[in-house]
């Protein structure tokens, strides 16, 4: 059997092997000219080229776009307007009331995203911490349950959105449960508050498995003898949790917090499929604002979208720097 598998495997990679053989002679000639060290450039080139064209160049161009106006997509056709787009986004009489802002949609999106992040991240940290603590106990079928909570993480955001749209619809499962419990059915996604809560709940459902894994890895790294010592001293479990588990889990918890923040700020796909930003603008989040002002609305404004995305990017850079610093510190602690 193993022989057959090997033969099949070879047959499948045969074209690749042929290609690899074909590129060897020219590369050998190149190596003769540049020496062994010069080959580093050859190996780096493809990745670096794609990377430059599709990440670095756009990154620089983004600033250029944010300082131009009009609706054209080619940079050459766009008039330079300086900081006008930023001024448009930031001009506001009363920041607590988006309606008084020049770009009221932007401020609505900022407000919604801020609220979303506060609620979703808190919920996420609490739920995944509880799950990690439970999975860290000595229970039967631990690897099975670890997999269970990870299942939604793999689903695509579109699938996640559709699964829950189907459950929350008028004739859906949730209303069936409501009726069985003797409660009034609701059209959940037509209600501003319920729709907002749904985006929080659904995105937590979809991603908590990921954060649970990070926390579980942290819990398993806590030395067992600390707990044994606590047991010898008959320390109450609550105290063990506050004095041993939580402080030692601190770095992982911080990483989870910041990662959840970074991803929360960018919330788009599943919320978009679930509610489409509605009802009204109650679930309009920043990425959807950027997408719509740059691509989907009748009046496309790439400059405005670029400026908004740079503002969002600035927030993300700060958060990522905090995350890098935190994980450095966590690494350092582990090494010690």
């Amino acid at each position, binding site marked *: 059997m193993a022989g057959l598998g090997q033969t099949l495997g070879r047959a499948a990679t045969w074209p690749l092997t042929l290609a690899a053989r074909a590129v060897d002679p020219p590369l050998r000639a190149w190596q003769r000219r540049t020496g062994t060290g010069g080959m580093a450039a050859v190996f*780096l080139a493809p990745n670096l080229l794609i990377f430059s064209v*599709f990440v*670095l160049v756009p990154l620089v161009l983004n600033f250029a*776009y944010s300082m131009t106006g009009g609706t054209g997509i080619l940079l050459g056709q766009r008039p330079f307007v300086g900081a006008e787009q930023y001024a448009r986004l930031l001009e506001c009489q009363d920041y607590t009331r988006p309606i008084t802002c020049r770009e009221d949609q932007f401020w609505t999106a900022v407000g919604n995203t801020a609220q979303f992040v506060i609620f979703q991240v808190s919920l996420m940290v609490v739920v995944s911490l509880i*799950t990690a603590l439970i999975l860290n106990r000595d229970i039967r079928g631990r690897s099975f349950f670890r997999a269970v909570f990870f299942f939604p993480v793999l689903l695509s955001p579109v*699938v996640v959105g*559709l699964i829950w749209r189907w459950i929350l619809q008028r004739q859906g*499962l949730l209303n069936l449960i409501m009726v069985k419990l003797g409660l009034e059915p609701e059209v959940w996604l037509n209600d501003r508050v319920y729709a907002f809560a749904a985006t929080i709940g659904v995105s937590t459902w979809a991603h908590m498995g990921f954060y649970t894994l990070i926390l579980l890895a942290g819990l398993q790294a806590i030395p067992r003898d600390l707990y044994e010592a606590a047991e010898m001293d008959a320390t109450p479990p609550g105290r063990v949790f506050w004095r041993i588990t939580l402080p030692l889990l601190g770095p992982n918890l911080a990483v989870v917090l910041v990662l959840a923040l970074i991803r929360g700020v960018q919330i788009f796909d599943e919320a978009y499929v679930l509610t489409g930003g509605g009802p009204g603008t109650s679930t309009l989040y920043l990425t959807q604002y950027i997408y719509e002002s*740059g691509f989907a609305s009748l009046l496309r404004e790439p400059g405005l979208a670029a400026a908004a995305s740079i503002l969002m990017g600035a927030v993300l850079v700060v958060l990522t720097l905090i995350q890098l610093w935190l994980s450095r510190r966590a690494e350092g602690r582990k090494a010690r």
Partner: protein
Amino acid sequence: MTRIGEFLFRRRGHGGRWHWTDIATWTWLILGTVLMFGPALWLVGSSFKGPAQLAEFPPTILPYVQEVTEVEGYDKPLPLYTATLEDGTTRTLAEIRRIGTNSQMVDPANPGEKINVNIANRSPLREIGLATGNYVEPLVANNFVLFLWNSVFVTTMATLITLLTNSMAAFALSKYRFRGRDAVMLLIVATLMVPLSVILVPLYSVVNATGLLNSLWGVILPTVATPTGVFLLRQYMLTIPDELLEAARMDHASEWQIYWRIVLPLAAPALAVLAIFSVVWRWNDFLWPLIVLSKRELYTLQVGLNTYAGELNVQWHYILAMTVVTMIPVVIVFVFLQRFITTGIAGAGIK
């Protein structure tokens, strides 16, 4: 039964006593399992129901299809109903046609006699069965075969290119000393900060300028130079001893051969992890394909699903079935390869 229960809920090492924390633990785990799998299972169950059944409230748990029967003198099989007649008797009749609130029915055993029944007095005769048409029709008639093919193409190509370019770059960054190596590494780490949603507008214009708009390659190329992939592979390749490479050089192996025949096979475990990640990432991608692809025949499954689900009159029986199709590869990954991913995340913290 009790013995199974005893086996499942027996606590290790602490004797048979149940503490309140055990009850809380198992409540959380069981509730969690229902909540994690339930919604997807409900969707799969619903995807086998016909449109009429989907519109019902309260919904049934199992999918049913209406029974039909061949009746002499009619070309098509007729649907069966349980009808209550005016004289109070209940009979199983086949419906010929419906006119307003009146249903014209016939007894399959006696095809000559037509009976008129008010539609309030008849209920469809159903048996448990699967509405497989939900799957067949959109695949054939609504382009979903095309969407499926596009998704498969994008996922395969992007994963192959990712593996090749990322492993080459990782090889250079882990096995050579050259000027600017640290700068390149820093650049790669730094771009972890730049998610796609931040560079949508300029990326669109770059893709436009390179003529990749409305092409599957416009979806594939911007995603393949993943910094996470390079990082993951480099960390793994650092553990491959340099002596192996030196020995090969002694035997006059070219650098390319060293990469292809020594380093790549040795890095297979890390490549496998990256391949699984890449397949899931690319299969699930939504925002970028949504922007680049505006021709319907180029849509990937995710974009196609969103488009059909966004129509004014959503045909849920098709959408549900196609959502299940979209889930299949990911479920396969979950069932067979979940272990690789969870260890990958726990080890490197990537997603």
